[in-house]
């Protein structure tokens, strides 16, 4: 039996856990207060030593990202990525709704570390309650002097501006997010230059995910060693896993990195619904390659184990599919999503995503041919690497993995499938 390891969820679950009074009574802002006496370089070192890796999808080491900022700079921005739009992922929402002060404390710590006087929090437009909660929390923090003109020490401002998106998955991609804040269409930028050099309003900028920042108070308060005592060597700390689909108890579970995926599904999420068998599992949000049941039960919940199995832990959005699931139908849902969300900037993605969705729909409705299936695979292969951002990879990975691992199901849907002996004349 595995159990949750509670680090980020510690204060959640009470009806008033989102208020400053409640959060403070349970220890909020102790860690950020501690950083006021520390030099920015010390905080960066602490975070580097902790081994914290980004929770937005790529798992990039947070402390290392911060050191990419140029030494001499006149302004630095922090952008908090609260766009949470990767299908299957709903953990940042939990933090925003239930413990927004944990996030604001993390933002204050990050601002101190990278010498940022103004953070922008980009929240997806659909998030009404989370938006209300984070705004109210920011107002409370301003009133208490935890944000504002002296929040980083006498005369050192830390401002937080909450910027609401308006319905576009691509704005979760970090450079699209920057363009969106600047009042442009949310279309990704070419890299290099990287945002740490030329970011928001042309200034050096760090972009971090909500959950990433929410780890900072623990790291500062308890130290990197205590943090590294949880999880694995390459994936320290805990992970908020969003579990959805065919399980008895869907929800956000906080586990130490390295626990078996089987434990997460069976012990915490109550197992596959109705006592059925697992067929497939998407481990890290809809963009990550699907795993077969066998693969899924062999991996652990950490970056390196899921990667060794040919997928990614990504955003921790775990979508569970039982034995009754039609995998062509499942891919149809995803392909439709990517075709809808392509920002339209790069031709291979704009056209390719539409073609892919059309072909999958054709196969799903029994009208596809063998040639269509081949075209699907070749399209997926051709869009990868030929676009400005990795949205095309995010589309190609589910397509390739579904078709490769569940080929028989795709073939069984084809109109020109090899007729079996029992087929009607």
């Amino acid at each position, binding site marked *: 039996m595995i159990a949750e390891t509670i680090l980020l969820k510690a204060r959640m679950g009470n009806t008033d856990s989102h208020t400053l009074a409640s959060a403070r009574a349970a220890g909020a802002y102790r860690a950020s207060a501690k950083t006021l006496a520390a030099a920015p370089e010390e905080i960066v070192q602490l975070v580097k030593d902790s081994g914290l890796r980004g929770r937005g999808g790529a798992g990039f080491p947070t402390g290392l990202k911060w050191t990419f900022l140029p030494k001499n700079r006149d302004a630095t921005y922090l952008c908090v990525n609260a766009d*949470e*739009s*990767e*299908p*299957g*992922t*709903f953990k*940042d*929402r939990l933090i925003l709704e239930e413990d927004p002060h944990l996030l604001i404390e993390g933002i204050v710590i990050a601002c101190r570390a990278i010498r940022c006087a*103004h953070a922008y929090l980009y929240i*997806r*437009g*659909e*998030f*009404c*309650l989370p938006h209300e909660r984070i705004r109210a929390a920011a107002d409370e923090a301003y009133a208490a002097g935890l944000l504002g003109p002296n929040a980083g020490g006498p005369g050192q401002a830390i*401002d937080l*501006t909450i*910027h*609401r*998106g*308006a*319905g*576009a*998955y691509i704005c979760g991609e970090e450079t699209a997010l920057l363009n*969106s*804040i*600047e*009042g*442009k*269409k*949310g279309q990704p930028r070419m890299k290099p230059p990287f945002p740490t050099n030329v970011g928001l*309003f042309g200034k050096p900028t760090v972009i971090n995910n909500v959950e990433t920042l929410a780890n900072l108070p623990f790291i500062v308060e308890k130290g990197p060693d205590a943090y590294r005592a949880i999880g694995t060597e390459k994936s320290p700390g805990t992970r908020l896993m*969003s*579990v*959805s*689909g*065919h399980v008895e108890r*869907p*929800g*956000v579970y906080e586990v130490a990195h390295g626990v078996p995926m089987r434990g997460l599904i069976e012990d915490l999420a109550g197992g596959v619904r109705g006592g059925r068998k697992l067929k497939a599992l*998407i481990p890290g949000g*809809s963009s990550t390659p699907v795993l077969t049941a066998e693969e899924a039960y062999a991996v652990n919940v950490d970056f390196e184990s899921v990667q060794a199995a040919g997928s990614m832990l990504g955003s921790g*959005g775990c*979508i*569970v*599919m039982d034995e009754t*699931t039609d995998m062509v139908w*499942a891919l149809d*849902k*995803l392909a*439709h*999503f990517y075709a*809808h*969300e392509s920002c339209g900037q790069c031709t291979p993605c704009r056209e390719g995503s539409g073609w892919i969705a059309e072909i999958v729909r054709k196969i799903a409705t029994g009208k596809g041919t063998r040639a269509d299936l081949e075209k699907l695979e070749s399209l997926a292969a051709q869009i990868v690497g030929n676009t400005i951002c990795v949205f095309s990879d995010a589309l190609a990975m589910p397509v390739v993995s579904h078709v490769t691992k569940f080929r028989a199901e795709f073939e069984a849907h084809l109109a020109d499938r090899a007729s079996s002996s029992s087929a009607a004349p």
Partner: protein
Amino acid sequence: MTHSMTRWSAARTEEIEALRRRYPTDHALLLPVLWIAQRDFGWISHDVMELVAETCRTSPAHVYSLATFYTMFELEKPIRYHIQVCNNLSCSLCGSEGILAHIEKRLGIRAGEATADGRFRLTAVECLASCGTGPAMQVNDAYYEKLTLEKVDALLEEWMK
């Protein structure tokens, strides 16, 4: 020079000026001001686009490009109840297709359409980050989760009154 016939209220002007101080460019005010406009005027008409353009010191054409790129801005007179049912994978695994079909039947329209009396519009939308509480839908600003046919019927009954 102003072209728009629509005006901000005094309180709104103050709110916008306070926001302006939070951004180094007027351009960056565009999304926040579009949201304010939608709240105040109900939808983003061409006239409202001109007002937003003046406020953010940009062209109406640019405002138009944003209002159409981002899906949450209403470009037509809003409908009383905009029912948006999540159509993505996790909700579908939990039966959202049945929920959508049921609402279509109850309202006598297909997803993407509005009722003749202009009270309801039904849309199939992408992931709302409610995967753990699916099937889910958003109606105007509120989320409704763990939907069942009975729950949907009770809500529709209430809204049809």
